[in-house]
């Protein structure tokens, strides 16, 4: 639901970095977004087309690398990818677990000309 604000922030970061490099156009923007980040790719792309119009990022492709969730068990230290809805540790069944990957919302790099 907040993809407009997210798209605007992506545009701002991309334009700032392109300007620093004296680029004339931005071809693609490479994003890392965790599965837990509550963002919908289609929605980001929808807003992107509207807000990038008339900027050097117009027409740039958003490449979204989805990071899957990884957790660590506080009790036995096991690192695991949760299976479906349950976040239980598969080894010791503890529910004292911590998310170590899957929250990301980052601009990793931009490809410019």
């Amino acid at each position, binding site marked *: 639901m907040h993809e407009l604000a997210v798209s605007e922030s992506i545009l701002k970061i991309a334009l700032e970095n392109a300007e620093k*490099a004296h680029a004339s156009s931005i071809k693609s923007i490479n994003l890392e977004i965790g599965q837990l980040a509550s963002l919908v790719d289609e929605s980001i792309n929808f807003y992107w087309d509207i807000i990038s119009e008339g900027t050097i990022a117009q027409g740039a492709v958003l490449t979204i690398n989805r990071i899957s969730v990884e957790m660590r068990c506080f009790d036995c230290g096991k690192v695991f990818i949760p299976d479906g809805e349950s976040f239980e540790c598969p080894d010791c069944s503890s529910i004292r677990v911590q998310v170590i990957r899957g929250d990301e919302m980052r601009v990793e790099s931009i490809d410019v000309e």
Partner: protein
Amino acid sequence: MTSRIEVTEKILSSNDELALINRKYLDDANVFGVNIMASPGAGKTTFIIKTLESLGGRLKFGVIEGDLASSIDSDKAKAAGIPAVQINTGGECHLDAVMLDGAIKSLDLSMLDLLIVENVGNLVCPINFKIGTHMNILVASIPEGDDKPYKYPGAYRGVEVLIISKIDLLPYVPFNMEYFKKGVEVLNPGLITFVLSAKTGEGMNLWADWLVDKVNAWRERN
């Protein structure tokens, strides 16, 4: 020729930076900031007004009310004698640091110990946008159902305190407290939780006493 520029920047970094400035502003005024989140209709405003009663003058607080439209919530707070500022987001589903920056400046912080920010009713978006407060609270009301931690994990993971509210409705709606709490425990082990009803007052004193201790301890350390 195409070339790659490495960026590695959080998408919401400019919001996060402004949130830190808001935090500093509150720190300098020695005012503890609380961000209250919940779904629409969870009873955030009533909970805040009843908190005032339960505090019985032990803390001086002001509120910032976030809604898409209207001043209904800030009017209610003002009618209860609480200094209040309304933010209308005009469609945005969350408050962000820019909106809070404008609103805190219209409150006289020198008169306050505590600032309560009532975020837009929404279990998804507000959690991603830091605003600069010191503590996040989620209000989960009984009629919303016991499956909410399973459906909206992000909201339960990103908070320091959980208020389970409207417990006076437990006899009337299906709600399995054990199932609910198990879902919460998985997402946020050991989360500080208060079980209460703002309507009947049950549990309100325990919450208010805890809040007084929390705010006073913070203000002494700050």
